């Protein structure tokens, strides 16, 4: 029987990558647990509040999105909408061209990765440098991030040093301090010469119109201070009802993402700089991108939109750890990716990507750590149900059919017969039988002795029958 693509990727994975991913995720997973235990007697109550805030925001997005827009406009921010990823890149390009921009520095924005924005800008002759260290290294290598918070979790210092040396940032030096200082110097030049800075948004307050950006490096703080134009590219599901609600989310996000109480910088962007200040954007623009969010909102997977992009689920996931982020083939890896990636496209995309939803033992470690209590395992199984109904061959590869089983299990007499008949298997070399389930088992495991019907006989004897 064939096996699934993600399993093949895991089987072929370089041991160094697996070790790096394992070390990185386990450490953060443990830190997360420790900090929640220290800081909250009942962290589930905090997560429940986070879940309610996010779900309420989504369930009233028809009010909160226009409210966010109005609040932003009242702060002197220009607001744009883009129905999909392609339009998002179009809008950003229009903004940049209108301002005569050819040099951009960019802080993290997941939705801009969905849009392939960097490639669009490059194609238009606009240079766009990633300012987050991990994203910069990914950019220099033409690689893809393998984790939404720790983009180079799969890399080690030797590889990073080689990258820097290859790109003229100094001779080969693996010391993390040196690597970081080189990145600081390299980006400085870019920050000072950039004509625009780009970022995503962790949250947008519908009440005050403040755009919230969390970083540890200070890359967005610097970028937005140095450039005359700042463009925020974010998805419509980032809207949060009130500033007060930010308190709960700002408590949950850093702890869930990195085991920190707070990231070094939390910026509340509230409009362009005052006229009497020399640094900061004269113009701030926000692009709200839909790109399938409104579809997901009306679907049986709508809870996934609560996601605050903390990465805790992938840090907890033993499958992610064995396979690494690139095995998920898209922008979002891990449990988050397994649920959302199939939904970020049309039906053909769904069929191509929904195998990811089978790459799970449904252990529930992800649901346990999700700060907004997304029922991830349930959402994965919903994908499996849809893939089954739609008979999606690739997605259903190596999935045993259940018709025969259901037939047997609905008929006690047949079930009993099968139990008895299977006793004969003791005399059969099982490994020779071409029964996929059996072969799969026996390839790496011994099978216990068959005892079919014994308990039933015992209970009959007790009844005196």
């Amino acid at each position: 029987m064939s096996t699934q693509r993600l399993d093949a990727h895991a089987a072929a994975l370089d041991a160094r990558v697996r070790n790096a991913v394992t070390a990185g995720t386990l450490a953060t997973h443990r830190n997360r647990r420790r900090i929640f235990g220290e800081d909250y007697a009942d962290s589930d109550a905090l997560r429940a509040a986070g879940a309610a805030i996010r779900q309420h925001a989504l369930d009233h997005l028809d009010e909160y999105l226009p409210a966010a827009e109005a609040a932003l406009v009242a702060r002197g921010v220009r607001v744009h909408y883009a129905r999909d990823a392609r339009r998002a890149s179009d809008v950003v390009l229009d903004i940049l061209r209108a301002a005569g921009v050819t040099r951009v520095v960019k802080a993290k924005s997941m939705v801009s990765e969905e849009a392939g924005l960097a490639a669009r800008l490059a194609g238009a002759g606009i240079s766009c440098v990633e300012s987050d260290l991990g994203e910069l290294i990914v950019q220099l290598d033409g690689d893809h991030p393998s984790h939404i918070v720790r983009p180079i979790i799969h890399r080690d210092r030797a590889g990073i040093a080689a990258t820097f040396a290859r790109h003229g940032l100094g001779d080969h030096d693996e010391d993390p301090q040196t690597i970081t200082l080189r990145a600081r110097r390299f980006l400085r030049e870019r920050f000072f010469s950039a004509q625009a800075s780009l970022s995503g948004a962790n949250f947008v307050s519908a009440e005050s119109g403040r755009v919230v950006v969390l970083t540890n490096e200070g890359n967005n703080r610097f970028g937005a201070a140095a450039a005359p134009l700042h463009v925020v590219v974010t998805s419509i599901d980032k809207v949060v009802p009130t500033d007060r609600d930010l308190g709960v989310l700002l408590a949950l996000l850093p702890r869930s993402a990195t085991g920190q109480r707070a990231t070094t910088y939390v910026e509340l962007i509230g409009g362009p700089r005052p006229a009497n200040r020399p640094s900061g954007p004269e113009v701030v623009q926000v692009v709200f991108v839909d790109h399938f969010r409104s579809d997901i909102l009306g679907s049986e997977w709508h809870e996934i939109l609560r996601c605050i992009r903390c990465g805790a689920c992938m840090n907890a996931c033993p499958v992610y750890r064995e396979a690494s982020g690139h095995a998920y083939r898209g922008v979002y890896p891990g449990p988050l990716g397994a649920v959302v990636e199939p939904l970020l496209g049309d039906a053909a995309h769904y069929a191509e990507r929904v195998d990811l939803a089978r790459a799970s033992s449904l252990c529930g470690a992800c649901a346990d750590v999700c700060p907004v209590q997304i029922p991830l395992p349930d959402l994965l199984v919903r994908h499996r149900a849809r893939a089954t109904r739609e008979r999606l061959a690739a997605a259903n590869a190596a999935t045993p059919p259940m018709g025969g089983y259901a037939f047997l299990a609905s008929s006690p007499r047949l079930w009993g017969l099968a139990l008895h008949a299977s006793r004969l298997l003791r005399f059969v070399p099982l490994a020779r039988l071409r029964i996929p389930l059996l072969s799969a088992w026996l390839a790496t495991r011994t099978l216990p002795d068959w005892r079919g019907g014994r308990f039933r006989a015992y209970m009959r004897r007790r009844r005196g029958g």
Partner: protein
Amino acid sequence: MYPQRSPVQGRRVQLMLTCLCDAFYDDVATAAVTALEHAGCEVVFPAAQTCCGQPAYTTGDWDACRRVVQHALVVFAEDVPVVSPAGSCAAAIFHEAPIVFEGHREAPAVRALANRTWELADFLVNGLRVESWPGRLQARIAVHPGCHNRGTPTVAAAERLLGSIDGVELVPVTDADLCCGFGGVFSVGFPHISSAMGLRKVAALMAAAPDLVVSPDMSCLMHQRGLAEHAGEKFPARHLAQVLRDALP
């Protein structure tokens, strides 16, 4: 979702055998009966039972799942608790079945069955209010919680019962709640990852050289022991019910 439980009235219970015990682990089922009877229960075994439908749920064949659960509705129709020596099967009824029956005519009946379906340790401690287990067993025990028991009182109940047995020492396990990679059909489509996860789990459980590895779920132990023995290693697996029965004077 773990159900809202009503207080358990009376002592009559129906045993949900589970297909694994039906096929391989009759001793686990007889041990479960012994434990329940020791706690004062009258244990009924509806012989027409077959399976909980979980394999069909997890593969996504929800039509097949519904057929199997509809049969279970008939089999366990008597309004008394249904007790299973497997957290995964109990969860199949109280968490998964309500999902596949959303919007279906039988949804209320499924919900009613869900509310009175229990895993064994949870039932003993939280249903019958058993506070400690009598008898004696000299053993260092590593507990494997089993992933279907996340978010339920089962693991705490199991550890409470085991820890209360005179002579039992529970040994700590690093990253104790890490999945062993069985996941039923998962191990078929993802054999490499399933085995890799399982071997890590076996190593973690055996690291403190326990006398017994005990779980409320035989399915996980079957996978772990299968991997260990295939690799030529011993793996002292024992189901929770067997330990409870063995400890009894």
